């Protein structure tokens, strides 16, 4: 699938995500919009996966470490055929499989339960290490938030990933520059990321994480060391009034805002 097609799918996923946030009255829309292009590239181009065999041993692994954007993953999984598209409407409803953070024992395609931050990367290191030990050819991808990189567990795993020589592991940092209550810069500024990752022994690629023609080659890049993609993204990407506004970490649009946002995303379609 080519970048233009991927862009179209990403816009459809954004629109469905927005609708679901509006209908459920909850979600983490800012970080969902920043990550959706990356999710689209992974699920519609890069990952070797079989939606009808979600536990296929040779499947590529994807770990959504920033589990609070579960809705974006659910919409993507639905569009890719892992779960019924109409099931997205059950998001956050009583007894729905789709709660606010993904559950691997309920939702096909989810690999491990995330929610508390700093969990996905250590698990992804274990997945990639398992492939090295068994000779499996699958690759492991993990998406973290940039604020999430403040969790020390990530740096334990970054050190292990280099020590184990995990050239089959790709970490994507969704660098949208905002965390829950403020900008990264005003909180605990780990940026710039590249020098830090390089110092730990990783290859680093910096991209515009909302541009398909940069995302795809970065995800498909292969080297001899673990690979970190620092994806510069915009929180709320695609919806003008949300973009780069910290308020939209988990704010829900009102009816008027919703109408404007739907119009903007539909126009792009």
């Amino acid at each position, binding site marked *: 699938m080519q970048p233009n097609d991927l862009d179209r799918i990403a816009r459809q996923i954004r629109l469905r995500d927005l609708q679901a946030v509006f209908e459920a009255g909850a979600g983490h829309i800012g970080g969902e919009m920043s990550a959706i292009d990356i999710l689209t590239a992974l699920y519609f181009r890069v990952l070797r996966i079989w939606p009808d065999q979600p536990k296929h*041993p040779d499947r590529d*692994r994807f770990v959504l470490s920033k589990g609070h954007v579960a809705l974006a993953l659910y919409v993507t999984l639905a569009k890719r055929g892992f779960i019924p598209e109409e099931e997205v409407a059950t998001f956050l409803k009583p007894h729905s499989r789709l709660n606010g953070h993904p*559950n*691997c*024992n309920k939702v096909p395609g989810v*690999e*491990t*339960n*995330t*929610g*508390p931050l*700093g*969990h996905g*990367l*250590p*698990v*992804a*290191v*274990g*997945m*990639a*290490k*398992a*492939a090295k*030990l*068994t000779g*499996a050819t699958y690759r*492991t991808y993990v998406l973290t938030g940039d604020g999430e990189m403040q969790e*020390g*567990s990530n740096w*334990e*795993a970054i*050190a*292990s990933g280099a*020590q*184990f020589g995990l050239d089959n592991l790709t970490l994507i940092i969704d660098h949208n520059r905002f965390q829950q209550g403020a900008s990264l810069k005003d909180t605990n500024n780990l940026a710039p990321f590249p020098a830090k990752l390089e110092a730990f022994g990783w290859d680093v690629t910096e991209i515009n994480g909302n541009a398909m023609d940069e995302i795809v080659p970065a995800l498909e890049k292969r080297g001899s060391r673990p690979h970190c993609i620092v994806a510069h993204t915009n929180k709320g990407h695609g919806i003008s009034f949300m973009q780069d506004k910290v308020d939209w970490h988990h704010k829900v649009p009102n009816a008027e805002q919703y109408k404007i946002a739907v119009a903007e995303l539909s126009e792009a379609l």
Partner: protein
Amino acid sequence: MNAVTPSPKLHDCRDAFVAVLERLGADNPKIVAVCNDSVGSSKLGGFKAKWPERLVNVGIAEQALVGVGAGLANGGLLPFVCGAACFLTGRSLEQIKADIAYSNANVKLIGISSGMAYGELGPTHHSIEDFAWTRVLPNLPVVAPCDSIETAAAVEWAASYDGPVFLRLSRVGVPDLLPEGHKFELGKANLLRDGDAITLIANGTVTHRMVKAAAILAEQGIEARVLNMATVRPIDVEAVVAAARETGAILTAEEHSTFGGLGSAIAEVVVAEAPVPMKILGVPGIFAPTGSAEFLLDEFGMSPAGIAEAAIDLIARKSSRT
């Protein structure tokens, strides 16, 4: 029944753990050991010598230790994640909750040198909270074997069980109590001595002390039932209810805080199903003073004589109720 007799020889249960791990590892290449620089203290030197590539050492990084274990299981391996119980459970509790228990990852968590095994090193190195922290987690059986025979049997069982397990081991020497060839059954207590005056329930390093306390009581004409209850979760409800109904009093002892451990798990059953007088022996809600595990267990009333004394007091409470 005849009461069990503790073996004269004492065993470090880590030896039984690694002996079984290496035996199973020879037949099952999926078995990997994961550690946090704890090759020596987990006695994984032999495993490492046989299969260096299957010993995954993440260094001094317990959050990665548990997370990596979950990932290895996702990749089709059977990880035994080993670390000092105090760090494995305390430092990585959220990983145990989210990555292992909630994700239902097929990972065996091996807490080494639990309880006060690191005695003189002090409360930072004591793991007397781990039953409380782990037994509230769904999907996670919590098991503390009483001797080398039960340790071997529990490791064998854990390897065949499809799901997470927390196995709590010590390094303190204990006599063998259970017969050779003993099979471990999750959630089933073992009757070590029968009696009707009171039931003494323990696990781990304290079980043999209960057996010795029962012998002291027998010399005074008091026949105590002794149960070894390695499984803290799921608790053996049937054995607890039978103990309450048939003996009328329950004394528990554990190398753990008196808050939230084996005694608490038993009390939850007793209160709901068959209320009788109970007493819980353990570390009484304090940070322990300096001393070896053996010294501290005695200090907190868990010498055989101390247990016998607590049993007599409890039997008196039982009598005063009628």
